[in-house]
Every structure is written in structure tokens, then in C-alpha cells.
């Protein structure tokens, strides 16, 4: 199945793309998506993830068509 991947701020600068598609297995979780876009690297604790605009843990299951986002700690306000 396929998910949309978005990245923000210095994580986008580091990964080199703002938006992309990722092909992952049917039972994939957020961590699998991360590994599919980083050639299998560990997901640092400082990286935050969201699925369909809500915060999600590394083991959150994703589904076909989901929007999965990765970003650094937020600094608004």
C-alpha cells in the first residue's frame, strides 16, 4: 500500500524532500514508514510523527492513503 510522507523544518532540510510517496507493507506502522524513507535507520527520539494530522507513536498502524508526517520539536508561540 502507499502513504503520503511529509517532512518539516530541519528534518525536511536533512531528508531532502518536503513531500513524497512511500510504498509499505499492509501491516506497516509509523516506524516502518520512517525506515522506508531513511534506508532503514533508527527513528531518533527527537523526531515527532503525525498520521492524518494527529500526533502518532512509532508503533501506530498506518493505512493505505494515510498522510504520515515527520518533524522536529515544535517552536511556535
Amino acid at each position, binding site marked *: 500500500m502507499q502513504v503520503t510522507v511529509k517532512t*518539516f523544518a530541519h528534518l525536511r532540510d536533512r531528508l531532502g524532500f518536503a513531500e513524497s510517496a512511500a510504498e509499505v507493507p499492509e501491516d506497516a506502522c509509523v516506524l516502518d514508514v520512517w525506515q522506508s524513507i531513511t534506508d532503514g535507520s533508527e527513528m531518533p527520539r527527537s523526531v515527532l510523527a*503525525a498520521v492524518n494530522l494527529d500526533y502518532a507513536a512509532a508503533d501506530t498502524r498506518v493505512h493505505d492513503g494515510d498522510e504520515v508526517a515527520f518533524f522536529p520539536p*515544535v517552536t*511556535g*508561540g
Partner: protein
Amino acid sequence: MSVELRTGVFEPWRELADAPDGGLGAGAYGATCAFVGTMRDFNEGDAVSRMVLEHYPGMTERQLEAIVEEERAAHGLLAARVIHRVGPIEPGEPIVLVAVWAAHRREAFAGGRAIMEALKSRAPFWKHEQTSAGGRWVEHNTKG
């Protein structure tokens, strides 16, 4: 309850002057607490000449709305309003306005502060500063 993102300069106090009752009837509330965060011209020891506020369209609004609703319920707020800048910002310009209306001052101060803390820790915004040494991402917020 109202949440807005703005791409241009705004005047937080004038926004409140034009709508001081937060949509409530005059006389229905006793306390209003408003917080404005403003861009300073220095940060972590360096002069900052400009900043760009990146955000995650869709998620930012959704998180702000969830925060406002949670803190409204937690503190018994009667009304709340949040305006947050996105895009390029110059020193001295307002970044965020959080205003809350309540029956009494205790809820107003606590609710306004709670919304700011939640916004700082959960709302997906990222600051990119321009200093004399070049551009840099702000890595973390000041402790609340």
C-alpha cells in the same frame, strides 16, 4: 472559540478593541486575560534580523482547535481566541495572541497560560531565524 493563522502583520490589541467581549454579552464575564508573544531582535545571545515561521497546514489549525477546546473545558472558560502568524516576521512584530474570557481572574490567568503552554509544546510551528552568522532553526522553546 476562534483560531486563526495570519500571513501578515496584525495588531493584537486592536483586534481585541474591535471585539472586546469575545462574542459574549457585555456583563456576562468578569475577567479577560490576553497574552501576546512578540518577536525579539535577539535570541540566545545573537541579534536576529528576520524570522520565518513554518507550519503544517491543516494539522496546525487542528491542534490549535483541540488545545483551545481542551483548556476551555478544563478551566471553565467562556470564550477564547487565538491568532498566530505564519511566514516571514520582522523583529517587534506580534507572533501570537491568546485571549480568554472567564467569570473570574483565577480561571482567566490559568486558562490563558495553559493554552500558551500547550501551543508551545504541541502546535506544529517551527521558527527559522536569520542572524548575522546566517540562518538557523530554533531548536527549542524557552521554558514556561
